[in-house]
């Protein structure tokens, strides 16, 4: 029996007021993928931060290569062969791929950096990824797409000769095709004898990749499997209940009403000849690869990056908006995909964030706490109704979980009673339980007559939550599917690998 690459025994960790981990044990053998599942806040990140030396443990032991280690700095863990790839990349966008891979440990000759050796070694490591995804070592990282950036991140770990690579939700920002590249890479690393700890919410990835599965819940090991069980079993262990009603029921034909938005032959520099309609009461999912133009379409409708041609009507009136303010006035709301960067004013309170748009649209001399759309009290009521959980609505919103932040943004738009709400990546970075909450919330909004446009890279989510699915590719709408279509059909349409009847 080979010995584990890492073994964590009875790890206990407390933060002021919280017991984050209670006697959790976890191990990873060379050449295996050990999936670590659990909701946000279950303790996955804390466990991995102890492994990588970011946190110190209160009790238990970390054994690396048969030796008990106490890391006090991330660097010591890196030197011991443990590399962690976080969701938020730690790449320097303005430096080259090679410079990033060798960050802080550039090869030198006579005290000077040996650029030639650096590029050669980078090329050697990158070659492991196969020729289909050729990345030149002297490309500036900012010029790479997200998937390639992730590959660079992984190349960094490989070149460090990591024995253990922890991947924290590596597919969060990847589209389906890019995911496949990543999965192939995980297989390659596995064959090379690397132990991989794979943190994810997505059952599909566990089924596809994992050899063993450990589920954490509330800082304890909820379940540990030496095989890969049925997804239902894992999910039940994660949330502690069945999630048969994960997605809300679809719209009934009676619930679907008038056309709210109609787009005819519209386009701009990134969109070509787009025509579709959205009706009151329905949720329409927009699927496609990253860069297929889904977000560009949302931004065009919202007036952020306007259409330059074609016709758009909102509730029968011309609606080719050239700025978001007009679009919002006419009844369009947009929930951006990157909540922290685009959706929230992090240092303001929950209610301030809720009132953001209402205040923006009222007069400059108007009262901040009594806008024509919602008063501060009404906003607090709305936040309550949406079940936004916060210690107080006057606390800074940055402390809230992703799900609660998203609900606060929904509240912001509800105050304006929009006709059309555009959700971009509505559940990115949100844990399983809260995801269900968002799906049900979207459905409730639809039932009240709002048309909902959902742009998502999470295909199961699109299939589960939408009433209709439109597929985009290279700036065009290429296919439309009713509810119940298979994942494979959508993928084929999105990648254009096969002719698809729209």
């Amino acid at each position, binding site marked *: 029996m080979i010995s584990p690459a890492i073994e964590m025994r009875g790890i206990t960790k407390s933060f002021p007021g919280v017991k984050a981990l209670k006697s959790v044990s976890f191990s990873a053998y060379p050449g295996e993928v050990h999936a670590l599942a659990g909701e946000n806040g279950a303790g996955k990140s804390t466990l991995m931060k102890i492994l990588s030396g970011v946190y110190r443990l209160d009790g238990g032991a970390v054994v690396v290569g048969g030796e008990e280690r106490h890391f006090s700095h991330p*660097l010591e863990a890196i030197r011991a062969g443990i590399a962690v790839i976080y969701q938020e990349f*730690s790449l320097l966008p303005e430096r080259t791929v090679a410079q990033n891979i060798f960050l802080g440990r550039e090869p030198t000759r006579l005290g*000077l950096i040996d650029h030639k050796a650096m590029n050669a070694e980078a090329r050697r490591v990158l070659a492991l990824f196969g020729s289909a995804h050729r990345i030149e070592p002297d490309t500036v990282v900012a010029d790479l797409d997200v998937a390639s950036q992730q590959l660079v991140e992984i190349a960094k770990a490989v070149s460090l000769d990591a024995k253990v690579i922890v991947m924290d939700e590596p597919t969060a920002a990847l589209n389906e095709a890019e995911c496949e590249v990543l999965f192939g890479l995980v297989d390659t690393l596995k064959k090379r004898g690397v132990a991989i700890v794979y943190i994810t919410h997505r059952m599909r990835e566990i089924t596809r990749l994992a050899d063993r599965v450990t589920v954490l819940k509330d800082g304890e090991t909820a379940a540990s499997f030496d095989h890969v069980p049925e997804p239902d079993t894992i999910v039940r262990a994660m949330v502690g209940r069945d999630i048969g009603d994960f997605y809300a029921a679809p719209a009934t034909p009676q619930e679907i009403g008038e056309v709210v938005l109609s787009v005819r032959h519209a386009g701009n520099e990134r969109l070509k000849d787009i025509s579709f309609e959205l009706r009151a009461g329905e949720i329409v999912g927009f699927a496609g690869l990253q860069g297929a133009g889904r977000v560009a379409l949302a931004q065009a409708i919202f007036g952020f990056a306007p259409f330059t041609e074609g016709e758009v009507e909102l509730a029968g009136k011309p609606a080719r908006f050239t700025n978001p303010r007009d679009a919002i006035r006419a009844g369009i709301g947009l929930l951006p995909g990157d909540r922290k960067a*685009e959706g929230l004013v992090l240092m303001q309170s929950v209610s301030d964030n809720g009132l953001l748009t209402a205040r923006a649209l009222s007069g400059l001399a108007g009262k901040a706490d009594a806008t024509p759309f919602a008063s501060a009290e009404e906003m607090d009521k709305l936040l309550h109704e949406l079940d936004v959980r916060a210690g107080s609505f006057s606390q800074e919103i940055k402390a809230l979980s992703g799900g609660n932040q998203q609900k606060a943004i929904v509240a912001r738009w509800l105050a304006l009673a929009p006709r059309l709400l555009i959700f*971009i990546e509505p559940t990115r970075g949100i844990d399983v339980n809260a995801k269900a909450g968002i799906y049900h919330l979207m459905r409730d909004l639809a039932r009240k007559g709002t048309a909902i446009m959902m742009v998502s890279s999470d295909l199961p989510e699109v299939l589960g939550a939408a009433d209709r699915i439109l597929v985009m590719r290279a700036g065009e709408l290429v296919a439309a599917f009713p509810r119940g279509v298979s994942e494979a059909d959508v993928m084929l349409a999105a990648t254009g690998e096969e002719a698809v009847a729209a």
Partner: protein
Amino acid sequence: MNTATLTKRPAWRMERYAPALLLAAALAIYIAIALSLGHTRFLTPEAAVSILNRSIALGITAVGQTFAILVGSIDLSVAHLISASAVVSSAIMNGDPAMMVPAVLAVLLMGAVVGTLNGLLITKLEVNPLIATLGMALIIQGCLASFHGRFGGSVPDAFQYFAYGEVLGLPVSLIVLALLVLAAWAVLRFTRFGSNIYSVGGNRDTARAAGIKTARVVMASHIICSLCASLAGLYLASRLKSGSPWIGTEGAYDLESIAVVVIGGTILSGGKGGIWGTVAGVIIFSLIDSIFNLAGVDAFAKQVMRGIIIVAAVAFYAVRSKRIVA
């Protein structure tokens, strides 16, 4: 929205060559005006040297400022440090050639101390660099003001060789500046330290996680910056024969050094840019001076023009570097 690029940006990125283009434009305008006014004597190599020679102090200061800005910091104390260096050097030398070496060493030591203090304030006490170096500037200014009455002196003639001497027909000071630029380029391009400056400026947390001792890199950059300012002070003392406590602020070396670095394409948040851009920025500023002198336009217009160029350059970079979002 934040994540993907729709298309790869072209490999040839214009903003990278913008300082060179701007420089070419300034040069073209200068030549055009000289020709149209019939002043062909302004187009000789001697004229070129004299144009460059006008900006030695700014050039030396800007080399240091490039390090501070690249590492993600900034230094507002350079102007006052220049004054202090000029005053202290002339006070110590006091006309005595034997005191030249001690004076130079004392001034450079002072620069190193100021740089270290700036670095400590920024890294250990985590004071915002703008505030830390502004505070340092006020402290230096206060010290100068209170001691000024007691400082007199002038530099010996031998020391004026720095500003007025010539080797092979080239001013010594220009050679010093050129060597300084070459050294800075080599450090930034070829050494681990230079690479660390870009990394720390690009993302301090990333650099720290990769095992770079970020505080040391910031400190060292500030020490380099202050040493350059001290050297600029020595140069000015040499040129003007004695130091005055207003010499640095009158030349607005703090803001101008930042301006030329930024015109040179180094971004204020750090991590991107380089020394050649700064050189281009310095020459552009001297050319503007020369153009206005040639054309006989008054100094106010010149200042307005400088302002426009700074803002236009930064706006240009900002527009060019916007990511295409999908």
